């Protein structure tokens, strides 16, 4: 789905979703995350039901999430039942937790998570329905300030620290590739 150039402005994807005084910074190049990646040692990927339907290369975003997880050794939380798809692909570093449970558990600074590797200081979110991800990130922004949230979907999520500003699909895929390189310790 191509997106008109005027959507490069960092405005929420769903136009009525106006939040408050804080808003995410536009994530257009993975390089901008370098400082946060250096600072944060315990990242977590939280991905939702849309992961199985959104195309990426010859596959879907499931393939990308697996690639990203493997590159950075990042544990995955699968919400909304998408765990089944990960398991069918033989991927074992994913655990199932609901999106709304995640919004709650992340508020606990001692939560170790089902992988037992928490507490986490950085989350990447993707593939949870836009408005649900919006509320999950709001919870993190307000009540889990020690966590750096990065929304890696195409559409702008103002409650993250970094979020793609409604990128065109082509540019977004470039960014996703850069991100794999970056979390794997390479340079983009």
């Amino acid at each position, binding site marked *: 789905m191509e997106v008109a150039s005027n959507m490069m402005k960092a405005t929420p994807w769903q136009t009525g979703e106006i939040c*408050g005084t804080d808003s995410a910074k536009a994530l257009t190049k993975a390089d901008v995350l370098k400082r946060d990646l250096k600072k944060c040692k315990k990242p977590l990927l939280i991905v939702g039901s849309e992961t199985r339907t959104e195309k990426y290369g010859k596959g879907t975003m499931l393939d990308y999430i697996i690639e990203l997880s493997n590159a950075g050794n990042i544990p995955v939380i699968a*919400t*909304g039942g998408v765990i089944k798809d990960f398991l069918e692909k033989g991927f074992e570093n994913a655990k199932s937790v609901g*999106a*709304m449970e995640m919004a709650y558990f992340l508020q606990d600074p001692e939560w170790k998570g089902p992988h037992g590797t928490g507490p986490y200081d950085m989350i990447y979110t993707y593939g949870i329905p836009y408005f649900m991800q919006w*509320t*999950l990130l709001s919870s993190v922004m*307000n009540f889990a300030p020690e966590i750096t949230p990065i929304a890696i979907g195409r559409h702008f999520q103002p409650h993250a620290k970094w979020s793609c500003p409604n990128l065109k699909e082509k540019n977004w895929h470039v960014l996703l590739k850069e991100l794999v390189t970056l979390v794997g310790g390479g340079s983009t």
Partner: protein
Amino acid sequence: MFQPNTLRIGTEQAMKKKVHFKAEEADTGLGRFKGLEVRIGEIVDDEWDESMGPTPMPGPTTLRSWDHKILTKYQPSYMPYCQVCCLCTMGKCDLTGTKRGACGINMKAQQGRIVLAAANIGTAAHLAHSRHLIDHLIDEYGPRTKLIQGPGTEIHAPISRLVTGMRPRTLEDASIIVDYCESQLAHGLSATATGQEGSWLDFESKVFHIGMIDHLALEIADLAQVSTLDMPQADPDAPLVEAGIGNMDPNKATILTIGHNIIPAAAITDYITEKRLGEMVEVGGICCTAWDITRRDPTAKVIGPISWQLRFIRAGMADLVVVDEQCVRTNVVEEAQKVLAPVISTSDKAVMGLPDRSDDPVDSIVEELVTRKIPGAYITDHKKVGEIAVKVALAMKPIRAKKKFLPSKKKIQKMAETCKKCMECVRACPNDQNVQEAVLAAATGNMEPLREIYNNCIGCARCESACPNEYDLHSWMVVAGEQDCANETYMVRTGRGAIQDTEIRKVGQPIVFGEIPGVIAHVGCANYPGGGQDVHDMAEEFAKRRFIIVTSGCAAMSAGIVKDENGESIYQRRSGDFDAGSVVNVGSCVANSHIAGATIKIAAIFAKRNLRGNYAEIADYIYNRVGAVGISWGAMSQKAVAIAAGFWRLGIPVIVGPHGSKYRRMLLGRADKERDWMVYDARTGERMLTAPGPEHLFYAAETVAEANVLTAKLCIRPNDTGKGRSIKLSHYVDLHETNYGFFPEDIWKYIRRDADIPITLKDKILGQMKDNRWKERPTPDPTLLKEQIHGGGQ
């Protein structure tokens, strides 16, 4: 008319709360009074065989201690929908993170405050509806008209008994209860004012209180209407009625009624019956008015849920639109004007800007509406509405018959070619439907994508509001879905009202012991992420598993709009008895009270607990023993919050669809924290560990898959017998494996002793128990209340 000498004042069984009521006209032993206002300190109903409980007519903080017990287990998880407060002129205040507003409020309290505001709004809508019904029915039938819930309902009005200690036997009793509700709502609303409540915990307790009041108002409203308006009374064989747009007869003049309050719609069907015009006019309803007119007159039709308002109006099928209250599209007049359909508004809550013609002669109003001198009229005299509606619809039918209101496919194709490809339609769609792609397909003559959107659309029309070309995109969808629209013909069972005591007697024990694995209630609005079929599929999934399925409101319609290979709806396939595997439509929004009422009656009938003014004990019983779960998949309005809150206070979990996350707070348990799952054993007073069940009290599920797994899990209760627990776990495991693709890792937590283990899963579960160093534990007689320990917990 009101006769105060029917109430006896004073003596030993006096109620504690003061009562205040008004009557426009009262015929008393002292004379005839107009504008009478009476205040009574105490009233007595001395025919009770149960004593009054500790909390009749509770105030805002009377049940605070119970609320805090629940809220300690299920703490609010706030997800602010907006970071600022703009409710007073000191603001806007930025509350992000740890900041406080000028009044001192912080983010958590502000979120609790907004939830309370929503619950107040929702309750106000139901309560004002209830008040209107009671006042109208007292005018019509007199204050001493008996309230009858139906055969086999000896425990009459269970919510009223539980909350107020009263059993409303007449409309004037009902009015006293509505007075009480109004006073509590005023307190609840007051708490949201700037400079009042400041604690999130107390805001949440008040949310529960207002939810309880909401249920009470609902019960009174439905009790009053089933008692007086010839609706099914606790009837499991309530008639099957026609539903769906395709069932509307295009050869008849069509009156569309929208809303929740049956009074004006009833006047219309009465007029049609009286004048024998049924062959020429028909009445269809959208939203809860649809249920209530078909409960009263099974020849009326259910057009569909709230989300079908626009598609039906745009299709030009209504010759007249009559709106009452709640869930009415607020630009209904503008929309109806596009299709030359006059509008009659009938409720002071939704006048819609129309001129008040209540006192004018019928013929002059008809003439002005038919000649379109006025787009509509506000008419408060319901009998007049009945006559005018029928006359206008009959007159408009030939005028409108030759008009075409929808664009042709050819015209749509031409317009679609000029699409600016700006994506604003997609960005405006709450369900992210790819409207632009469908428009671009239409430009090539392919209407199929627009048709698919028609089938998923919730009819909000935000897409066309956003369109810079001002295309009527929703109308395009209706054109694309024309054949689907014509095929929408279903048979649905109309609302039966209350559940009979005899039915409860039959299923009470298996529910409490867990052998009927749960009661699942599908309620609420139609803001579905993927169309109404999801509700049907969820209901069918659990009916198949022999859960009891209860439906109401728009969800009850959605459950019925899917046909099987034999062309039958779920209501044709399944019984309307309150029994395992049945699908029981209780009726409209106000009939939701019967769902709560059934759980309350289980405590009274099966456990012989006293209900009168005994809220905390009964809620504790339901929480620990009755595996009930509410699902509001399309939860949308503030009324849904109010209804949900009434269930929360009774300890009944509620699942909402993904849009429910916008209610901005969940009530979630922590299965990993053992201390949260301790109960008292009522036999010994010992504090004992139970399984984390129900795990959550309010949860927005992302997908149907998640909702199904969670539904099965949330039916688990501390009191389940071994057999009951093993049945519940079997369903949970099966749904988990089907939807998530693996054996759930937390089964061991729910095993108390060997008898809890489903036999066919024994090997897997024993392995899990060993890995987690499981230890056997006894099954308590569970309670959260110290005073429920035998001997009073001393």
